[in-house]
């Protein structure tokens, strides 16, 4: 009852905000000027090195077929424009949504006949970063596909579910307390617009799901696994929530 009232209120607020002024802010808005400058300068942004890794792999023959991504998709700077902005997307063969990392692995297995890449490894992160870069500056544009709706709803339910020994939901931090400080850390609004991104704390470029796992570990919950239906549902919900915001891949975060 209380939750329904809250959702209704949230919907009303969202509509009013969209009409009046967009209160949504990327995580980069909460960063210090040094980190913002590092993200803005391609020479200084370490995420660009991952994009270079990805570009090399895009053009490298792989697997039994000896085909590269470019053999089928040509020049990524044109063929991959806007792709990351509309993922996750529904995959009819699986009857479920796939995220970009999942799509890359489906292509590797089916079209290159090469083994799937480990999700957080340098190659998978490189390809996802290179593909994400082709959407940089474009608005997040979730597909208008009715088959995604139940998965998105599941993502929203997970987002508002309290979890872990500390018993927090994502929404309690990122909706109710965004802009506040958890110790030294400003709490951002949890927009997925910058991923894969270089995180100084990781000393590496990492995925949105790695970030999810950090937050879940933070509340002392058992994290969902990489590529799980739960994480894809959460990503679907967050991409919808960030609809129209600019893709920033590769972003930098503290």
């Amino acid at each position: 009852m209380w939750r329904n009232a809250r959702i209704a209120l949230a919907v009303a607020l969202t509509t009013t905000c969209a009409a009046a002024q967009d209160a949504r802010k990327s995580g980069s808005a909460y960063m210090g000027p040094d980190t913002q400058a590092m993200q803005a300068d391609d020479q200084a942004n370490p995420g660009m090195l991952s994009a270079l890794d990805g570009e090399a792999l895009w053009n490298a023959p792989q697997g039994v077929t000896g085909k590269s991504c470019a053999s089928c998709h040509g020049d990524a700077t044109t063929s991959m424009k806007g792709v990351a902005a509309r993922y996750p997307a529904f995959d009819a063969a699986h009857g479920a949504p796939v995220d970009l990392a999942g799509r890359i692995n489906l292509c590797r297995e089916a079209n290159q006949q090469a083994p799937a890449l480990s999700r957080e490894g340098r190659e998978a992160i490189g390809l996802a970063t290179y593909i994400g870069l082709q959407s940089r500056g474009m608005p997040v544009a979730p597909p208008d596909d009715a088959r995604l709706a139940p998965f998105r709803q599941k993502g929203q339910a997970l987002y508002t579910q309290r979890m872990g020994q500390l018993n927090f939901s994502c929404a309690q931090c990122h909706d109710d307390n965004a802009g506040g400080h958890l110790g030294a850390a400003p709490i951002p609004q949890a927009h997925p617009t910058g991923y894969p991104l270089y995180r100084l704390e990781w000393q590496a470029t990492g995925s949105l799901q790695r970030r999810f796992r950090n937050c879940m570990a933070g509340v002392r919950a058992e994290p969902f696994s990489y590529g799980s239906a739960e994480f894809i549902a959460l990503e679907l919900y967050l991409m919808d929530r960030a609809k129209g915001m600019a893709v920033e891949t590769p972003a930098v975060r503290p």
Partner: protein
Amino acid sequence: MRALAVAFALLSGAAYGQALAPFQIEDGEIRASLTGQPGDPARGRAIVGERQKGLCLLCHKGPFPETPFQGDLAPTLNGVGARLSEGALRLRMVDGANVNPQTIMPAYYRVDGLTRVAPALRGKPLLNAQEIEDVVAYLLTLKDGDAPGRLK
């Protein structure tokens, strides 16, 4: 046979954690000490100030000049010992949801009704009974300070 029973008891102890001490909530307070003993305020201060253990300063500010970055999601702890009675503080520590069902403050002495707790922590409260008493004893010493309120 006996050895087996002992081993089994140890095993289930590990699996289910320590049982919580019983307590009674009356008029928004838990009046009796969970251990039957008074807590130690010096140990309590150490728990509150320690980031991995108490976590308190992630959300609250308090008289901890040695801790530079204190959170701002909750009322200050300054003066809390004058605002709340010992029993009200104890209830807050055990499970603040009894006062405010929507609270974000974790229940420090509760093990049920939680979802997907990390396997190593299942069945374990955030603090044990002695630690709760130590923190309550410390909070009671915080008699003066700023007015309460959200420091956003």
